[in-house]
């Protein structure tokens, strides 16, 4: 009886909130532009290799560093080794986006688990766990990542792990905060007094409250991760040849700045567009889930 009523109330509350948020998001022009842009870039990443006769590794020694041209379908030109940039940028897109998405997912999972446990358990354990987070926070993320990469070598998988291992901190904090707040609501007290199991409480009451801020933060985390990976790859500490990523392509572009500027401009443009897209989407999500006039 209580379950039925509870379910109805929760469903109604959650649904109308979500629907309102969705409506606000869809009405936000920049957010839609961001979404479309991102879709185009992702589309490009997977469709490009099908459109071009070239692959990312073949060296065409007769066509070194030629500017973008329709001839021979080198739409973005070639680099110093005669490799086609069109296909390479797409490959870089796949790597950068994959790292961004997967690493964020790892961070989110670790962060949610850590934060929920700390928040729910409370007391000494919570204090200790958050102290740990505080100390880790003191070291700039980038440095911690570089240290980790130094230790474990340069290998895409480990780059993932390194970034993920560092970026979960903020999510843990957010989740812990929400868990603490939710724990004190009457909802949870009532459920607990009726004998609901802790797991059920966590999933039914705490998770829905946490989802909003976590989604917003995750959306802003993906571009951060892509940026960190780009920085690392640029410095030679990230993705290595024969793989490629935007960061790597940009560093190669910097090397041929005066002779072949397109080698810098094209991957840079893609990275910038992706950053813009995520920023618009993230801002849109934030406004949709927590609207405030004019700010």
């Amino acid at each position, binding site marked *: 009886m209580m379950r039925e009523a509870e379910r109805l109330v929760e469903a109604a509350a959650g649904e109308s909130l979500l629907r309102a948020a969705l409506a606000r998001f869809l009405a936000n022009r920049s957010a839609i532009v961001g979404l479309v842009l991102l879709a185009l870039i992702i589309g490009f990443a997977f469709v490009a290799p099908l459109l071009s006769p070239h692959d990312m590794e073949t060296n065409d020694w007769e066509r070194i560093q030629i500017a973008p041209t329709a001839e021979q379908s080198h739409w973005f030109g070639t680099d110093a080794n005669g490799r086609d940039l069109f296909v390479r940028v797409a490959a870089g897109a796949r790597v950068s986006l994959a790292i961004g998405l997967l690493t964020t997912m790892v961070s989110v999972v670790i962060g949610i688990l850590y934060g929920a446990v700390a928040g729910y358990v409370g007391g000494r354990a919570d204090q200790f766990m958050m102290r740990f987070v505080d100390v880790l926070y003191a070291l700039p993320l980038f440095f911690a990542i570089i240290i980790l990469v130094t*230790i474990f070598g340069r290998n895409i998988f480990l780059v993932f792990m390194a970034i993920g291992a560092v970026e979960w901190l903020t999510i843990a904090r957010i989740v812990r905060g929400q868990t603490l707040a939710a724990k004190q609501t009457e909802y949870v007290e009532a459920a607990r007094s009726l004998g609901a199991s802790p797991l059920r409480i966590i999933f039914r009451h705490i998770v829905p409250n946490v989802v909003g801020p976590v989604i917003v933060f995750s959306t802003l985390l993906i571009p951060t991760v892509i940026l960190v990976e*780009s*920085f690392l790859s*640029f*410095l030679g500490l990230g993705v290595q040849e024969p793989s490629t990523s935007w960061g790597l392509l940009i560093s190669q572009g910097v090397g041929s700045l005066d002779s072949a500027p397109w080698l810098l401009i094209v991957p*840079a443009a893609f990275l910038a567009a992706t950053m*813009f897209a995520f920023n618009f989407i993230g801002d849109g999500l934030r406004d949709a889930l927590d609207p405030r006039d004019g700010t």
Partner: protein
Amino acid sequence: MSRFVLNRLAVLLPTLLVIITLSFFLMRLAPGGPFDADAQLEPEILENLRAAYDLDRPVVEQYGIYLARLARGDLGPSIGNKDYSVSELIAIGLPVSLQLGLTALLLATLLGVPLGIIAALNQNRWPDTMIGSLALVGIAIPSLITAPLMTLVFGVTLKLLPVAGWGDGAWRNQILPVTALVLPQLAIIARLARGSFLDIGRQNFIRAARARGLPEWRVVLNHALKPTLIPLVSYLAPAVAGVMTGSIVIEQIFGLPGVGRYFVQGALSRDYPLVLGVVIVYASAVLVMNLLADLIYGLLDPRVRRGQLAGAAR
């Protein structure tokens, strides 16, 4: 006030120690070592080298030796650059990085705050939209892209500014690197200032100040400015971290002889002492900035000064 400072130091120093310890053990426990690249060395020479750098002793003992040396200000020898000690390398690079970083931070603040306030005063009109768009560009586009792009435009195409090099601190060599470092922070600070100013503007005491017949410029200067700045102080430490991160890449792009360059070098060649030394310097800088932020906070908010709030409430 001095009790406040001592209080903060008591918290910050252990944090530094933890960072040093963590970094130290992480580096030691990693697979592989600094001499892996020199694979062609004979075993005996390798042994001697390792002994020379104390790498043959138990890890815990190495830690003790390291701390002892650290207390004397000795960061150990650099394994990669055999003729220099880490302290010497850092001493070479630090002035460059400091100059770059501090200039960038100062400019970002001195330009960002007024821009943010101007945007807020003209909310939703063209200055706000323009500043907002610039801020978006600054935040979304990393220095990874802006630095080479500016070099392309101003250095290669227009030939107005040098493409790379420090030139012993000549101002022309600093323009591009500093601009690339400033942009992201400027954007964030402007946004924060705008948001903060709008928040303050909605407060009752601002309305009360106007009710006293004070003209808007007086209301802004005497009543709105200080509270606007308070939340920004919390951003000081992250701003420093951001500048430090950016400077690593900037120094690489422009070939500047700063600390960042040694850091990357050390990471690539697994030069533990060098990497550790740089981490310590950077971590100390962040902690000093935290302290500075707390002090500034005290200057701005009388409640902190008069001891109402223990430590900075952020």
